[in-house]
């Protein structure tokens, strides 16, 4: 973020959806559930932010998390174990 530019609602929602989409791509049960949960909780926590500077900090933080998640979803898929977690095999 060069200057403190105001980030639109649409941009925030798009980031949120991208993070959730990437989270779903993790083949590991625990990492996938964590990424989804952490994304939802972080956006809920920051819902009340009004100060443009902190909104923009939270936004760029989320952007960098998205980059990490995209890379790691690929890495995890490359070394996925042959057998899945017991939590995925017999869903209750």
């Amino acid at each position, binding site marked *: 973020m060069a200057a403190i530019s105001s980030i639109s609602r649409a941009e925030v929602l798009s980031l949120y959806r991208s993070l959730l989409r990437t989270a779903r791509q993790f083949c590991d049960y625990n990492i996938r559930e964590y990424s989804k949960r952490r994304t939802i909780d972080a956006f809920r926590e920051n819902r009340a932010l009004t100060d443009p500077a902190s909104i923009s900090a939270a936004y760029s933080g989320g952007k960098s998390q998205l980059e990490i998640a995209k890379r790691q979803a690929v890495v995890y898929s490359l070394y996925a174990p042959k057998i899945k977690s017991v*939590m995925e095999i017999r869903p209750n």
Partner: protein
Amino acid sequence: MASKLLASSLLRQTLTKPAARRLSTAAAAATATEPSPPPPPQLVDDEGVTIKGVKISARPLYLDMQATSPVDPRVLDAMLPYYMARYGNPHSRTHLYGWESDQAVETARAQVADLIGASPKEIVFTSGATESNNISIKGVMKFYKEKKRHVITTQTEHKCVLDSCRHLQQEGFEVTYLPVGPDGIVDLEQLRAAIRPDTGLVSVMAVNNEIGVIQPLEEIGRICKELKVPFHTDAAQALGKIPIDVEKWNVSLMSLSGHKVYGPKGVGALYMRRRPRIRVEPQMNGGGQERGIRSGTVPTPLVVGMGAACELAKKEMGYDERRTEALQQRLLDGIRAKLDGVVVNGSVERRYAGNLNISFAYVEGESLLMGLKDVAVSSGSACTSASLEPSYVLRALGVDEDMAHTSIRFGIGRFTTEEEIDRAVELTVQQVEKLREMSPLYEMVKEGIDIKQIQWAQH
């Protein structure tokens, strides 16, 4: 004669068999366009894997966070570049490879220091908490051996602390192993009374690895400061889980581990106070890395991983803590709602929530662990698991032999889900009920017989 005949026929069979096989493969090779390589021994098939003779069709849900934790993907992301292009030796002073690795190591040092409220200059990277404990205990005592001949520790310390102390005893040092109360907490007055003019070190762990109780470190630190005795704490299980401040605790030395905070295995750190300065005799000699305290090339990727894990832990501590507490409550409530005779080992109030050590009365612990094959838990520390001896930590608490045998440690972490806890509760309850149904002891208790009063026949 008959046996000789049998032997010769057997020999003939074994001799002819390979020949026949060779013929058939040759025929197969002739028909196929290219010969296929021999298949590797099958460990994994469609159904699952076979490890140690056990057929496993799914990965068990993991509730053994005190043994080790999974590497956080954000940590791995920080580490990977140092396994690829940035492979330099951080001690190389003459080229970019060295410089960039050195910079990464120093960043990691600052990240670790930041989490415990120390200065980066006070952090020494080691191979893990075991090495840090060894340097602390043996190193300090050997450095000050002319005047200080006495060490104080507790009976519930980790094996590596107790073993280092035993080693010192063989060299003529004296060691006091303080007992702990039934809640696993050390008595402060007893500690104060045990300190002598020649006491060179007090070593008390922060969070117990088996029962999760938190020792009163601030108070111990105050006593040590007052009596001018160096204080060492093994904080491997505490790092990133409870707030750590080296000033508040007044520790001179602190052992830290990477793989208990979602970092990589094979790396740890030692905090060494600079003011007042504590000195140690190095246990590893060589190139003089880490200010000569721990020679040997610093493993850049691992250290970067530990740094990233610490930075993450600082950011996520509040969030993780809230979740772990809720999950621990869910687990305990779930089990207590369906089972009686469930005892939490160690203090309930002064406890790290991610560690729940429970005993199930009238159940044999090993059978329970074997029955819970879809849940990865352990009876105590990984170092002593699989031995039929009850844990020495539980014995130090004064837990009865029969209850010490039935303990299970549930370790909850950052990646544990509610569904996993519910499944673990369901499976544990099922297994305990099954074992109790078979137990004559449980039947007698239900009939109102006090089994403690029974006079067992001696053989």
